């Protein structure tokens, strides 16, 4: 609602008291402007190179990593075997593929990420929720990775119907409330082959397949992990694994990109 100033009517005394009172009203009004006072687009164009930057908390920024990597000779098996949906943690070292899942990346990858598909936020990180001090409602995560080749390797045991070799990815986040990385369950993705195994001697299947994951990390995700909303999200990363693979399966990945945008926004 617009401010309705106390206008001067005919006969009003134009004295210092009246003038100062009206100017004070103007001061109060200007100091408490509402969103309705803004023309649409004010914070989305000329004061930001990109739309989402306009909403970024001043303590934060957009995070992104794009690395050209090749896993040409990395053998994923037998060191890595997907065991359980939603499992937390995993191998933290790029190029060491053990356990349920491993961080995407390789030591030979160039770039500032140190070979890992892992982003660390500045300072203490962010508390999610607009009332928790950092004015960050959520963190928008976008991930994609390119698969070059998949080779089943030695003939795998014939899988039962519905179970075939699958390549698995997911996103995880780290909080100062726990020592391990936590999987964002709904980001678990996989692509599956038909029920055919290819021999090691045969040509490797060239896929050039892109896996993409979009996710909004919200305060509820912290609550689901048993964390208080005053705890910080300190980083995010992407994980990879193999499911029901043969003894010498080889997965060759190439470029990946992980981006994170802390958002100043209102969840409706």
């Amino acid at each position, binding site marked *: 609602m*617009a*401010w309705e*100033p106390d*206008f*001067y*009517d*005919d006969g009003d005394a*134009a004295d210092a008291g009246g003038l100062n009172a009206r100017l004070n009203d103007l001061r109060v*009004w200007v100091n408490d*402007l509402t*969103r309705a*006072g*803004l*023309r*649409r*687009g*004010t*914070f*989305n*164009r000329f*004061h*930001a190179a990109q*739309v989402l930057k*306009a*909403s*970024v*908390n001043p*303590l934060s920024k957009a995070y992104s990593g794009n690395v050209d990597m090749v896993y040409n000779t990395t053998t994923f098996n037998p060191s890595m075997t997907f065991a359980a*949906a939603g499992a937390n943690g995993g191998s933290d070292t790029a190029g060491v593929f053990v356990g349920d899942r491993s961080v995407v990346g390789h030591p030979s990858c160039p770039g500032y990420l140190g070979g890992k598909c892992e982003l660390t936020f500045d300072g203490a990180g962010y508390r999610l929720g*607009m009332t928790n001090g950092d*004015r960050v409602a*959520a963190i*928008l995560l976008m991930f994609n990775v390119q698969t070059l080749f998949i080779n089943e390797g030695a003939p795998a045991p014939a899988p039962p*119907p519905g179970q075939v070799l699958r390549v698995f*990815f997911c996103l995880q986040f780290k909080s100062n409330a726990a020592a391990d990385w936590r999987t964002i*369950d*709904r*980001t678990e*993705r996989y*692509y*599956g*082959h*038909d*029920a*055919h195994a*290819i021999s090691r001697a*045969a040509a490797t*299947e060239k*896929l050039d*397949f892109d896996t*993409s994951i*979009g996710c*909004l990390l919200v305060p*509820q995700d912290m609550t689901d992990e048993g964390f208080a909303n005053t705890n910080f999200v300190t980083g995010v990363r992407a994980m990879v694994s193999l499911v029901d693979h043969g003894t010498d399966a080889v997965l060759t990945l190439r470029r990946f990109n992980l981006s994170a945008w802390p*958002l*100043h*926004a*209102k*969840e*409706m």
Partner: protein
Amino acid sequence: MSWAWPAHKPVAGLLLDNEEWNDNVTRFVQETDGGLNEHNFVSGTVASLLALDKTEDDLALRFWHQRLSGSSQEFKYITGWTPIGSVSRTFDSDGGQVLVIWSANIHIDPYLDDKVAGAHFALELDGVVQPSSLAGSGDMGNEFVGDGDASVLAAFRWKAGPGRRGYFPMTIQGIFDIPPGRHTVRPVARFIHSSTVTSGYNGTTFNGELIVLHLWS
């Protein structure tokens, strides 16, 4: 507000006219009621402005969100576009632009050689499929893509050129201009039918997320 100038400039020696005063004030009042734009802010102040507790949470963005962890949503093997289970979001808007992102894992049974030729995916806004969000060529032809040398069994069977099948991740998105009012957005799928099968091979999604980000622009 960059163009708000006092209409009447007081001149020394003349009486203050109350109507001129009122008119001067009104011009600034009007500008602060929806006229403030990028010219009113010094470069670099936006970030500090957003950090203030007193600024409204939706000063720049609003979002609606549907999380689908562990959820399996079915889409029917029928002719034409079909919704993906109950994945949908209805919201009220003052108008502007929305960024919609849908990300999930798709299951279209890969064992059905020559029976299911794949599917297209897209976002539907207020009942209208948005072509800019289409995943797949849109071609409804069901000629199969060859698997290559018969002695090398393909790891993936994409089968139909314009469609996709198997188990695979899917992320589609689009930016749409919307008028003020109530809107509904949802992902939809369209199977490419073979000549022999017209029903019975529904697809499903697993996990996923629907994000609607309202941009004040």
